């Protein structure tokens, strides 16, 4: 504990920050035709961030605590930073071709993405409200801009505006809640809040504070009924950014929620538990039902990601409702496990969408008919990612669902049992629309087989696809790989 800065411990953040600066500088000095170096610099920069992460993970130096315990680099932080770096890496790989083929400038794009990654890394280490807030804004701010990246496209503008307005609204509500929390407990550090909040469950101010904070994060993870921005923004934003939004940004939201609920407000579980229970049920049901009606593949994935968020909220609800220590721990790791697996399979699905996009980029699902026959490898990967999202063994998604169900059943009360049953029915409904995409790709006849042009798949995108698929397969067969990471974070839950 102290104010000393452990530079080794924050080396990953520094690497990413430096990379962002380098990208920005390169963009300044490089002539137009050589802008692609910015992409390479960004990809390399994020890649380099993995080295200090691995070094930190291997060394058993224990947790590093900075700024009087406000910024902690422990196993939890490292695992999630690893996730953010990996997801960011994949998103960058997916972006290269997409951005190059657009008319727009490149440098800022990579800079903004890198800053957002940095923000999510900061969130993982944050142990007080202020750092958490800073991290969150660092994640969101660049994304507001990135969502509107296709500047000439009115849809993209609109996506950006909607995301921005609702994002700021949620930030304001969350901040208001944080201020009340500070007022109620007199603390901003999570450990302090936890210590001070014992016995405060009944106080209206406290309840209000907790609810507002949770709602702020609910927006970030796009839980129903705070999800309205997601489909519009996803549709309008550039596809790689949509992927980033649905994975990293969502993951950042979950990280915040995890820290807040398990670390800072376990005493208030009677408040956030039922609230999240309701959100989980609504998210799963409404999003799944809505997804059934979607014609646009990105919107479909948007609703899918809302529904997946609902599944990820299930363990929270269980933790909130249950008093069992074991259940709490398994709920915590369940969310982490789900998050990791979800990240890769969802990124894979978006990579497929980018790879399979026609020149027109309509994104209409029916336009995918016959895709499997034309490019069997991509079609195969599409089936892999979509069925993984549906949770069909032996693809990784099954294990995510499995741990989610496991924690729900482990709650041991009627409410958690009911939640499990609702989740089970929803898993079946969800299968339908995932299967619909695969069906269109493999089983429908291509109506205009001749006149369709597909963009060639760039090497970077292929790499992204292979990496994501590899994770989906390996984690599906050997879920212990994922467990290895999620289990190390368990400590955070138990304090």
């Amino acid at each position, binding site marked *: 504990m102290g104010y000393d800065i452990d530079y080794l411990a924050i080396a990953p953040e520094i690497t990413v920050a430096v990379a962002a600066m380098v990208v920005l500088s390169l963009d300044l000095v490089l002539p137009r035709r050589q802008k692609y170096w910015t992409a390479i610099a960004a990809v390399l920069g994020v890649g380099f961030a993995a080295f200090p992460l691995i070094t930190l993970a291997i060394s058993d130096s224990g947790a590093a605590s900075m700024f009087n315990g406000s910024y902690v680099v422990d196993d939890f932080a490292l695992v999630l930073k690893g996730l953010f770096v990996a997801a960011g890496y994949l998103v960058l790989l997916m972006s290269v071709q997409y951005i190059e083929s657009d008319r727009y400038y490149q440098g800022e794009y990579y800079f903004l993405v890198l800053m957002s990654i940095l923000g999510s890394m900061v969130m993982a280490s944050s142990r007080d409200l202020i750092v958490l807030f800073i991290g969150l804004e660092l994640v969101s701010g660049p994304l507001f801009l990135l969502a509107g990246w296709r500047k000439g496209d009115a849809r993209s503008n609109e996506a950006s505006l909607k995301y921005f307005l609702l994002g700021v609204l949620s930030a304001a509500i969350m901040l208001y809640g944080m201020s009340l929390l500070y007022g109620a407990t007199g603390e901003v550090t999570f450990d302090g809040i936890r210590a001070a909040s014992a016995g405060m469950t009944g106080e209206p101010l406290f309840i209000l504070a907790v609810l507002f904070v949770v709602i702020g994060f609910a927006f970030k993870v796009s839980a129903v009924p705070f999800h309205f921005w997601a489909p519009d923004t996803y549709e309008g934003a550039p596809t790689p950014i949509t992927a980033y939004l649905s994975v990293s940004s969502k993951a950042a939201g979950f990280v915040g929620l995890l820290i807040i609920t398990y670390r800072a407000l376990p005493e208030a579980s009677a408040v956030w538990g039922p609230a999240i229970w309701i959100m989980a049920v609504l998210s799963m049901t409404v999003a799944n039902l809505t997804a059934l009606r979607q014609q646009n593949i990105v919107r479909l994935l948007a609703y899918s990601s809302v529904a997946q968020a609902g599944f990820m909220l299930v363990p929270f609800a269980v933790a909130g409702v249950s008093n069992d220590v074991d259940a709490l721990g398994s709920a915590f790791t369940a969310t982490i496990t789900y998050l990791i697996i979800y990240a890769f399979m969802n990124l894979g699905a978006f990579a497929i969408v980018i790879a399979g996009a026609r020149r027109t980029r309509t994104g209409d699902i029916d336009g995918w008919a016959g895709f499997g026959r034309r490019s069997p490898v991509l079609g195969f990967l599409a089936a892999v990612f979509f069925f993984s999202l549906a949770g069909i*063994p032996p693809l990784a998604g099954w294990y995510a669902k*499995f741990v989610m169900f496991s924690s729900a*059943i*482990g709650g041991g009360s009627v409410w958690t*049992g009911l939640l499990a049953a609702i989740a*089970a029915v929803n898993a079946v409904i969800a*299968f*339908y629309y995932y299967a619909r995409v695969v069906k269109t790709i493999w*089983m429908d006849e291509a109506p205009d087989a001749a006149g369709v042009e597909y963009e060639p798949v760039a090497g970077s995108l292929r790499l992204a696809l292979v990496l994501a698929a590899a994770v989906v397969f390996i984690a599906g067969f050997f879920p212990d790989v994922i*467990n290895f990471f999620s289990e190390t974070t368990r400590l955070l839950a138990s304090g």
Partner: protein
Amino acid sequence: MEWFDTWGLSLIVFLPLVGALLVVLLPREQEESHKWISLITTGIVLILSVVAAANFDFGAAKSFQYEVNESWISAIGANYHVGVDGISLPLLVLSGFVTLLSVIYSWNHWEEPRNPKAFLALMLVLLTGMNGTFVALDLVLFFIFFELVLLPMYFMIGIWGDKSERVLPVFGKTVSVRLYAAIKFFLFTLFGSAFMLLGFLALYLNSADTVAGRTFDIPALIARAPELTMLPVAGWIFAGLFLGFAVKVPMFPFHTWLPDAHTAAPTVGSVLLAAILLKLGSYGFIRIAIPILPEQAKQWAPVIAVLAVIGIIYGALACLAQTDMKRLIAFSSVGHMGFVMLGIATLTDVGINAAIIGMVAHGVITGLLFFLAGSMSHRYHTRDMDRLGGNQKLMPMLGGILAFTAMASLGLPGLAGFWGEFMALLGSYSPLDGLSLGLFRTAMVIGAVGTVLTAGYLLWMLQKVNLGEPKAEWDDQKFHDADKFELAAWVPLIVTIIAIGVYPKIVFGATTEAVEALVKTAFGG
């Protein structure tokens, strides 16, 4: 053979996956290599299964053999625990056997849009799933394999299935037969298995008082059955398992996916679906639901028996109303699996033995029927029984085999189908102590009436399809009788049908002791 004890089962399970990978990696043009790789892979798998059966210690059929128990998902205590006992051994051999024959049959029978590479790869993946389910001794592992079979079958039906369209009753909506069937099949099974999974998890959470002690291990759970079955939630758990398995079997009111799926699926798909996939459900009852929750099994037995009997009569009557030959055969599965479930519901060693031999027999017989139906629709380009007729005249060999198989299917004594039906009735005459005698004996009588109806629709089918003068529309057409690939696929099945019929010990030799031990452990006495 020491290596076999440890690696045998894993090879049986995962070799097909390796084969599938090889098939996928070779370019699409090399059809011959795809076929040969599939043939060799399934052949080796069958040989290994037979070796496993040959080396099997039948004196200790009740204990698991070739057992491997390695840590797999340490966080939840799920292990890679595989092994076979007398109950799973026949089914394991059956799945390798039927798959090999399917590969042989496929050699020159490809449904549109052809693509042997993809089809064979799916078939091999399917084999992994089926074999894995039969050897899995861990609930999670079982679940994985249980679900693994869905994907290949989904694609088989959806891509290679029936290209026609039909109008849904009530809603008047026109749907593509194959797509409707494929998604229906998947959704039904998924629905059931989602609740089955919840049941598994509940078992896990109650398997020990401490987290460390919890397990998904089936033998360990069976050992703990006396406590588990007393849990207040045990009834719910059994309901979950029931839903999962009953859909797969399928039992009466969950059966409607079956006629659609069977009718729409390509020939080999129907064969594998009927021969092996349906067995996963009934196997689940025997392996998991009954021994782990015996008390609940007792409570549910009357329900299962009633549904089984309804299924028998219902399936038979539905058959009589069909005009589509394949759909008729599909409905017959409902009836036959009804006998299997009736056997299981008795909870006696006789009944469960009946169920297992019924499963094996249904596998070979209905598998063969689907082969024949497939070959016929391949030649006639219709499955409408009103247009068929005189098949015996046009293709004597094929017709003869069809007649033989229909006879086997109606439970002719001396052929494989008899034992399952007869012993299921035998079992339900004297069910487990404590079960309602009146109900089960009524079930027996109704079941026996069901055998008559079964004979009725099969003979009726034979008359419509095989006998009579061929319709005028076939006059100028040249039909070639069964070719060598078809015969290579069918003759082994015919031999098996006779062999099991005359000498059922082929199956019972393995199962009896294991089933007896199972019943004794579960219900005492």
